[in-house]
């Protein structure tokens, strides 16, 4: 892995909010929206994606070292921030890739406007309510210890285990900020927007759902039901990967994404 948080990260200011944003590779633009565990676990996937695209990977407001604008409390709020970012960078024909919380964000952006977008890739996506009111679709991760969470979220728990005593300060702080930022966006309603389901029909561009099959925080049935809500969306699985397939299988993840962008 050639990227670390220690290198000076370029930043971007959108609507007076400064965020970290890394860019890698050349070619067609690909906006990568990280999951609730932040940008650091996504760096290997970003490198792999950069072999076939110009990857633009911001750190969401409130995560990492990115500022948090006053009043930003929902993924809906966050989606407007990214619509502004797309305008500001004047990006066109952008593929948008998101994982988990980032995939929810992909959907929230796309139901508002796909004018600047070409294709969507949503991996182990949260964001909608599928089951009935007395059954949670998504395991309550805030009722789990970190170890319990890692055991259900990863195919190989070692992939998600971090030694906080050995990590650099910036990464430990980023982990703490990620937990807080996630709860700010996803505590209640829990990891979904009750309004989103009725808006998904507006997405009329090619969409791929990727699913790490060892995810026990979300079921594959949930993913397939979600996928069926978006007209024409395709569903593919990734083996030996859990809730964060980009982290556990960065190369296979990037291959699936780039292959989809290639039009196959």
């Amino acid at each position, binding site marked *: 892995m050639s990227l670390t948080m220690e290198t000076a990260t370029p930043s971007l200011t959108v609507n007076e909010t400064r965020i970290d944003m890394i860019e890698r590779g050349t070619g067609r633009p690909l906006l990568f929206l990280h999951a609730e565990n932040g940008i650091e676990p996504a760096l290997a996937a970003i490198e792999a994606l950069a072999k076939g695209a110009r990857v633009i990977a911001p750190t969401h407001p409130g995560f990492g070292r990115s500022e948090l604008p006053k*009043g930003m409390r929902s993924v809906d709020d966050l989606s407007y921030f990214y619509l502004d970012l797309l305008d500001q960078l004047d990006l066109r024909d952008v593929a948008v890739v998101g994982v988990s919380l980032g995939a929810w964000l992909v959907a929230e952006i796309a139901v508002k406007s796909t004018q600047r977008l070409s294709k969507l890739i949503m991996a182990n996506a949260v964001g909608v309510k599928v089951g009935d009111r007395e059954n949670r679709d998504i395991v*309550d991760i*805030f009722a789990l210890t970190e170890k319990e969470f890692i055991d259900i979220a990863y195919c190989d728990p070692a992939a998600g285990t971090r030694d906080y005593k050995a990590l650099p*300060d910036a990464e430990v702080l980023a982990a703490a*900020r990620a*937990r807080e930022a*996630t*709860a*700010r966006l996803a505590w209640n309603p829990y990891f979904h927007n009750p309004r989103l389901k009725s808006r998904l029909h507006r997405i009329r561009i090619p969409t791929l759902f990727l699913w790490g099959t060892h995810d026990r925080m979300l079921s594959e049935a949930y993913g397939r039901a979600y996928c069926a809500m978006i007209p024409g969306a395709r569903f593919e699985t990734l083996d030996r990967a859990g809730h964060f397939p980009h982290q556990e299988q960065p190369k296979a993840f990037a291959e699936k994404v780039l292959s989809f962008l290639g039009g196959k």
Partner: protein
Amino acid sequence: MRVYQFTEQPYYPAWNDHAGSLRVNLLNRKCDPRTAADLFHRYYDEWQIADELGLDIMLNEHHQTATCMSSTVVVGLSVLSRITKNARLLVLGYPIGHRPDPLRVAEELSTIDVISRGRLDMGFIKGVPYEFPASNQNPVAVMDRFWEALDFIIKAMTTHDQMFNWEGEYFHYRQVNVWPRVWQEPHPPIWTTTGSTTQARILGERGYVMATLGSGYNTRPLYDAYRRGHLAKWGKAPGPDRFAYLGLVAVANDKDEARKRGDLVAGYLRSSSIVHVPFRNPPGFLSPEDNARLLRGQTPPRSYTKDRRVIDMRSASVEDLIAAGILFCGTPDEVYAQTVDFCEYCGGMGNLLMMGHAGFLTPEQTVDNLSLFAREVYPRLKAWQQPDAAQIGAEAVAAEKPATARQSVRAGDLVDATITAN
């Protein structure tokens, strides 16, 4: 000095039959409503005795827990405002960070103030960390929500000649006009709690009564921060009536019996810490910087004795709890001496929140505890001369250190969080 008798109204029969958590996820099958009824009546009887003994009363609420059956302070306040005669009725606290509807809070408390004919003290807290899963309020930015709720409640209680509108960040109301009007003008006294010097200074500026629990011989910096805030805003030092301290109290004529009672009352500290681990520190409850320290395994020292030994109040011995100013325990002479010694250390402290019952302390022991305290200790505490507030305030200002790097906020910036967070 005023003394408020406090019990958490525990359902202690479940304390020996839990699977690692007394709170939130201890299933209510463990609660026999007949036993609960007996306990409630017993606790109200004991508060009635406290009233007759000349003590004031404090009550609180918790949720989904065998440590405290009171799940809404309004029920307890309603009963007590009718069956007691003289006691002030302090709620500490009303967790308005968790509550969906502060208008309802203003209506409830105004009504209690009227029925009790002006005996209400309103302690507001944001809420304890482990009860966010129970209320489902977002623990992130809960202090913003707390302040907006508090500002709204004060406005609702103090607006009498016109209706008003409220369209804030968290709460929206129209045509606000609370009936009945509060008895105490401009509104019942406001109390709150903290474990952070930053917050203590803000409370000093606001002039609210500030309470701490379990802060023991770490209390003075909190009080001095309050004093500096108060002096800066009001130009005069706060009197001891602005400070409250929750101490466990066990008195008996016999020294050994007192220690036995102290050990039973300390059951409160031991049981409070029994909670499912992930609920102890919900996201956003502490700052990211403090959470980063916790991830690294750095936990702030919990409690100190007078001679600066660190103790863990969840497991400390009776003697250590006494040495740390967390438990006042012994014969009436001993308890008087311990309390005065602690108040002198604080630079003055005017409200002892006395946990005179907890856990397995029997009704007979509780009544004897309260009676002995009221007869043998309380009159001497009332007669005791508090330190000179102006001088103490001036010393606090003189001792202020220049601002250094951001001070770690202790996990316990709420009454119970001091025990269970980390």
